[in-house]
Structures are given as structure tokens and as C-alpha cells.
């Protein structure tokens, strides 16, 4: 059984945010109005966070692309009263929109703040509907949505592999953010498969996981910047 995970090399990330836009495009994440954005209601399953240290002129800044950590011990599923959020056999933390009652317990429980609540239904103009990705459902008002590691791509890749009578290869299943990254800063694969790059990288001495002390066991690893 695969255990999907991600390694993000902070030395390679230039903070361009192509991953952020690719994610929105792949997953039909609707932009909200300016007023809603001002209230902090914009969704971004993948968000590039800037971490600034020091004073001028000894300032340093690093960019942390932050998807869902797909924790092995996810705090969000423990608080969900209706089992709308769950972790599957391969370690992907998902959200069942049809079951979600919009209580937002999970959004509050998530220390990484990667769960977004739909205060309104998506507002797509007639023209904009043309570019919606038919592989991913749009979400109604009143539910939580989040990064799925582009789970629909896994389903598709698996079907293709099965049709061709072969094993799933590393390059068959890559989320949209990984695909687009111009500096190859994001690496994705099966953490338990020795032939996948992430398997070795997760044991790199530079590895760092966000808020590891909480015991969430995130499956997104960061490679600390070299000095």
C-alpha cells in the first residue's frame, strides 16, 4: 500500500506561486469578491507563505508553499462529528462534501489552517465556467474544502495503469503544484517506495516538518535551507 507524501526544497522555492494558481485551476477553486477577500474568506488550498527574519540589511526570507500536510495523525478527523473528513488507506486526508455539515470544527482543529469554508456557493460567470476542470466537483456553500493531493489524478493514473496492465509509476501520479513548479522545488511520491525520490529525501538531514511537536505526523516534509 502506498503512502503518499511530499518533499518541498526551500532552497529551490523562489516564491513565484505558480503552484498556488495551478492548484486553483486544477481544483476549480473559485475566487471570492474583494469584500469577502478582505474578511479573510479567500481559499487557497496551496498557499505560499513568506517567513521573514532579521532586520535590514541582514534580512532573510524563505518561502514555504503550504498544502494540506496530510497528517498521519490528523487532528481534523478526530473532531468531525459526521465523518466527513477522513484519512484513506494511502494516507490522503479527504473531505466528503456531501456529508459535511459545515460546523467548521475541523478548520479550527487544523494547526496548519489548510481547511477552507465555503461561505457562499462558487461564483463563476458564464464565460468562466468554460475553464472548470470536469475531473473535480465544484463545492456548494456551507462545506469545508481542502487540498486532496489531486486525488482525482491518482484515480485516473491508476485506471490508466490497470488498462495497460502495469504497475503505477512515480511519474504517473503527480499533483498539479508539482507539475508546474519551474524550479522543481516540490517532489511527490510514495514515501514507502524505495524507488521514489521522496523515500530517500524524507530522511535527509535537512528535513523539517511543521509543528511536528503536536504529534500530527505530517506527510509534507520541508528541506531546510542551507546556510
Amino acid at each position, binding site marked *: 500500500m502506498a503512502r503518499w507524501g511530499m518533499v518541498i526544497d526551500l532552497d529551490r*522555492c523562489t516564491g513565484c506561486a505558480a503552484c498556488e494558481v495551478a492548484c486553483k485551476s486544477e481544483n476549480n477553486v473559485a475566487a471570492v469578491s474583494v469584500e469577502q477577500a478582505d474578511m479573510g474568506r479567500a481559499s487557497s488550498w496551496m498557499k505560499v507563505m513568506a517567513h521573514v527574519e532579521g532586520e535590514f540589511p541582514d534580512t532573510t526570507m524563505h518561502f514555504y508553499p503550504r498544502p494540506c500536510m496530510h497528517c498521519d495523525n490528523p487532528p481534523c478527523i478526530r473532531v468531525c462529528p459526521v465523518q466527513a473528513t*477522513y484519512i484513506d488507506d494511502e494516507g490522503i486526508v479527504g473531505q466528503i462534501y456531501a*456529508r459535511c455539515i459545515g460546523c467548521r470544527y475541523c478548520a479550527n482543529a487544523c494547526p496548519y489552517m489548510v481547511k477552507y469554508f465555503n461561505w457562499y456557493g462558487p461564483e463563476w*460567470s458564464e464565460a468562466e465556467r468554460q475553464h472548470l476542470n470536469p475531473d473535480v466537483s465544484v463545492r456548494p456553500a456551507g462545506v469545508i474544502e481542502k487540498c486532496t493531493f489531486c486525488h482525482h489524478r491518482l*484515480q485516473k493514473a491508476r485506471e490508466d495503469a490497470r488498462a495497460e496492465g502495469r504497475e503505477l509509476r512515480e511519474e504517473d501520479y503527480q499533483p498539479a503544484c508539482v507539475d*508546474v513548479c*519551474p524550479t522543481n522545488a516540490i517532489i511527490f511520491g510514495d514515501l514507502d517506495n524505495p524507488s521514489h525520490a521522496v523515500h530517500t529525501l524524507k530522511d535527509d538531514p535537512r528535513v523539517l516538518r511543521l509543528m511536528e511537536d503536536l504529534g500530527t505526523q505530517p506527510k509534507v516534509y520541508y528541506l531546510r535551507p542551507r546556510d
Partner: protein
Amino acid sequence: MSPSRREFLWTMGAAAATVALKGAQDVFWESDESLDVGWAPGIEERRNSTCLICPSRCGIRGRLVDGRLIRINGNPLHPLSRGGLCPRGVAGVQLLYHPERLAGPLVRSGPRGSGQWETVTREQALERIAEQLGSLRAAGRPEGLALLAGYSAGTMQDLWRQFLHNFGSSNYVADEYEDGTEAVMAVMHGIDRRPSYDLDRARLVLSFGAPLFESWWSPLQAFVAFANPDAEEESGPRFVQIDTRFSRTASRAHEWVGVRPGTHAVLALGIAYVLIRDELIDADFVARHVAGFEDFVDAQGQPREGYRSLVMRNYRTEEVSAITGVPVARITALARAVAANRPAVAVCGTDVAFAPNGLLAGLAVHSINVLMGSVNRPGGVLFADDAPVGPLTSPVLDETARAGVGRGPIGTQRPVFGSGGEALRFAAAVAGAEAPIEALLLYYANPIASSTDPSVWHEALEKIPFVVSFSPFLDDTARYADVVLPDLLPYERWQDAPTPTSYPYPVWGLARPLVEPHEGAMHTGDVVLDLARRLGGSVAASLPYESFEGLLKERTRGLFAVRRGMTLGGQFEREHHRQMEERGWWLPEHTDFEAFWDELVERGGWTDLFYDHTDPYRIAQTDSGRIELMPAKLLSALAEEGSELRPYLDVATQTAADSTEFSLRLIPYRVSTLASGTLSLERWLAEQPGIFPDVLWHPWVEVAPETAHALGLSDDTLVWVVAPRGRYRARLKVFPGTAPETVCAPYGLRQPDGEPANPLRLLDSTNDPLTGLPSWSSTFVRLEQA
């Protein structure tokens, strides 16, 4: 053991997730109209093309479902972008299906700028334009036609130029991104071309204010060199960013050297001082290819100091340190790094060129490349070829056209070198004269939004009786047009897309329609050909092409016949071709032009990755045949102008605030996702304009914590940025990377209500008299709580 209820629900969860992702709208949400997007199983397809949003021209691969463009990804075959893409490229789907897109051609029905329009057919719009242009020629005043064109390198630019020439006008006015390097190359090398930078093979990249990872010619070129995705181990060059502002590029470079505003070039000469003093320069290269290094006797027989004497006498590290604020040890270390990591390349950016003496500062920065022999060598400054596409048919000028062209372009006041500030000079000439321009065409230019002085443009537009815009959106300038004939959007049209000169190899990218063209819009290339046909006579005779697509295909025959290069291919193919060509081989892969064209379209373009480093003409084409550190052209131009400026001496802009009222230095900068005034902003991009996660949609300015504290302003306050010339509203962001006493102001955003928020409008009117480029670092402002 039977499953417990909890485990049962668990299994159901996984099953339901599949349903939710696949087609749950049919099951659960039938009543919600916003979710009914009419999905059905569709036919999926992937097509290669080229991105036309910025000058970088990266390869893209569109994912289509039933003819709709769903996703834009990178094209891994493209040698420049190698499968990567920037956020603007990815957001292209929102540009294509933008709700503000014009539905069809418009003709003004009320007073100018009143917003009253009449919808017309394409035929009617074309007729109207042809009639106006025809009357200009009939009256014998073809030079009354002018074109203001944004970045359009390639066949569109060639076509426009040819059309205007045949028509009888020399008023092709460029309104595009400039970084001042063209003039530096022209005076030092005698080569009228922007330099290419071989970042991939450099070991050290010394960027003087070039926004390499943000809004440079090609951020992707810099990204690829930075991350080196083709290499197994991380062996990309070391990036050193010399910048006033702690930019995104500065933060991600291996080293950031913060210099005082306007002193980049002083630091460059400080580095040169150490290189010469410690005998670290490439003395052999200097002896063979460089003039003006040692003292010399000028054309008037006067003894002059050469580069070495000037630098050794004036740029001792202590003095440089006092001016730039960079410690002596750091200057020495930088110079040693340059010498130890050869090839090293110095890149000159807008922060250097956009200054009152930008050309002289650019010369100083580039002199490092000359001293280190980083010219025409792997990893240095190169002069790339253009893709050898076939020419257009030769121009045919009738009597009217010849007379019109003979009367020359409007506004003869030109800078000595380069063509900076051309658009604004044109506007000023039109505004000041009595109706010299009777028809203005706007092609991807929106000067009302992008100009440093929109009021001059307002005046100019008042004076021009007929204005046509080809913008797909009703942008700020199109609002003042008489006819708007919208162009097709990038993913609907044929266009060639050569990579910018910063990339050392010619790549002739091809953009092709990914989706069915919008019926209300028309390819501006086809408009030009159609207008030529309608005008008839010699104008029609010189552009005998059926369609723009046909014209592109015709020019491609040049690539087919040239016996070098390849259609885009993977890493192995690229390397194979390069190695073959290095050994003087080339294998014909196509015997038939049609098959070649089909493959070129399918793969997304053509490239030739071989660069001839042995060609001496790529080092210097000056009269002396050498790279001139003390350029004869420049010295005589300065003498003619009666200018006091001296090369390598007057390289800093050390203006200080001259009043206590305006005491903060304004540093405007481009944001990669926003740097365009001509295309409407995509909503996804408005949601992540900068590095501050809480700034969405709104314009902002950055100040240092101590500056904010001194002003009594806190983070997120709404402030007025006030300059002698005007003011605008923005959010204040306190950022520890900002130098004290400065205000860093991104441009490209406007207030959500549409009100402009453009820091460029606050700039004082100082410019470099030699290049005509504006000064971006000599304006002072104050902040007031709004």
C-alpha cells in the same frame, strides 16, 4: 468479526469520496444552480503552444476537454522553460474566459470617453478604419498615421512596420519594456542588440538590480538556471543580487548585497578596483579584445585617462564602501568570488538603467564582464542570433508613400542612444503640435494606465481625430478610442513567439489556436492584411498574403531551408543536435516542408541550440574592432552635447531629499503577475499579488518598521502616498526587509473600484538624456494616514 459501526462508516467514507469527486452534482446538488455546470464525459486532448503574456515566451501545453481550455501547463520540449511555468501563464485560462472580454467590435456613439458605444460587425469596423486611412492617403498625408505598439517582437512587429512603411508613415512608436542594456552594447561593442546571458553555464551570476526571478525578460530562464532541473546534482550558478530593495529575487539569491539607492555602479567599479589591484582580471582577453583600458590619446590628440587609471584613482574600497554602504571586506570578498567562480556574468537591470545617468552606470556594470573576459564565452554575455525565418515580401512604395516616409517620424528630438521614453515623447509632440497625427492605432498599448504622465496622453488623444484600439478588453486607453476592433486572445490565434534576447539561443516558439476563435474578435494580423487589401494599390501589392497563418507558414520555409536547428525536442534530442552542430554536422530530418510544418506546430516551435563562440564579430563591431571601455561614440556624443558627464566618474545618483516635506525615497517595482496594463487582471492573480498573504486585490506600499514607527503608522493602515506631482491610496505594510527612509511601491494593481494606484505617476520628470529612460529612484514622497 463483523465490522463495527464506526469501521462501516469509515469504509463508506472512502467510497463516498470517490462519488463526490467524480460526479456528485448529479446525486446530491441538483437543486443548486451555481453547481450545475453542465458536465458530461468529454474528449480530452493536449496541445503545445507558446505563452504570449510576457516577453519570456515560454512553451505551454494546453489541456482541452471538448474544445474548452481547462488547464495550461508547461511544455517540457521548450528549451527555455523546460516544462515550468509562472503563475501568469497558468492563470491564462482565466484570461481566455475573462468576463470583461469584449463581445465584439465597438464604434463610439457619444463624446469621447463617455462610454457610449454602438456594437458593429467586424466588416463595418474594418470599413470604417479603411475609409479613414484611405482618406489620409488620398489627402497626401500618410505620415498622419501612427501606431503605438506594445511588446510584439516577431512577425506582428514586422508586419506592422511593413504596413506603415508601404502606407507612407514612419510613426511606429514602441511602448515596451526596456532595460537600457541595448544602448550599453551599442556604445561598447558597436553591436545594436540587447545582450544574452548564458546563465545556464555561468558559475556566478552578479545581478545589479535585475529582477531575475520576478519581472525580468524571462524569469523562467533564471529559474531554470537557478534550479538546473536537467542536472542530476545541484550545480547551478551562485546568484548574487545587488539591490536596494530586499526583493523576492534578493531573498532567494544565494547572497544579497544591499546598496544605497543609485550606487549599484559604484559597487561595480569597487569590484573592478579589487580585480585590477589583485591582478585577477583576464589580462589576455583585455590585451586582445579591449581598447581604452590603458591611458590613451583621443581623436583630438589630447591625452586621456584610461579605465585602469580612472578606477584605481577613484574607487578605492574605502571610498566605495562610504558611498554604497557595503563594508570593505564584503567588496573584496565579492571581487574574489567573481575571480574564483569563472565564468561569472554581471547582469544589468532596470534599477541601474532607470537613473539620470543610467547609461554610464550600465557601462560600469558591464565593464566587469569585459575585465573577466565573460564575453562571447560559455557562461558569459553572448550575442544571440534571431531565428532565420524567411523575410516578408519586399516593400513597394508608391509616390504618396515615398513622400510620407520622406517627411520622417513626428518629434525629431531623440536621445543619442537607444529609444527610451519614445511613447511619452511622441505624446508630447502630438499634444504640442497642430494636428500632425490624424489617426492613431493602439496595439497592446495602454498609455493612459502605464505612462508616467497620463495627462500628456489625454492631451495627445484630444488632438488625434481618429483612434483605433485592438485591445480585447475595454482598457483605460481603449475607452478614448473611436473604434475598438478586439484582437483574439493568445490561446485563439496564430503567432510566432521568439524568446527574448536574454536567452542565448534562438527559439522560434509558435502560438497556435488551442480553442475556436471568439466570433466577435479578429486576429489583428488578419486586420492588417485586410486593411492593406482594402487600401489597394501598392499597399496591397506588398502584402499579398491570404491570412496571417499563411504568412507565418510562408516565413517558416526559412527555417526549413536553413540546414541547422531542430523542431522542439526533449533533453536528449536537444543535446544530440547541439553536439552534432558543434562538430559541423546536421542531419535533414524532413524532406518535405509540410511534414516539417506539421511537426513544428505539434511540438510548439523551432530552435537552434548551437552558439558559435569562435565568431569574432560577436565580440566587437566597433571601428577599432575592440570592445571600447572608453567608447569613442560616447565621448564624441558627450562632447557634442556639451555634457559634463564623464564615464566611470559620474555613475552614482546620490540625490538626497531636498525638503523635509517629502523625505521618503520612492522605489517603484514591478510585480511579475501584474506587470501589464493591456490585459485585464485574472482573479486568481489578484488573490496573490505579493509576498504578504493578507494582501489581496489592494495596492500596498512597504516601509521599514522604524520608519513606520517614526511616522506613527501601523501595519495595514490605509495611507496616501503623496509626492509633489500627485498622490494615491495604498495599504501600508511593515516589512523588515525595506531600507529605512524608503517606500517600496509595487505597480500594476488598482483600487478595487477601478481607481488607478500607480506609483509611476508620482515620479519626477528626471530622465537620462543619453538614453531617454526615466529615473525611478530620485523621487521623494511622504505618507499620510488616509
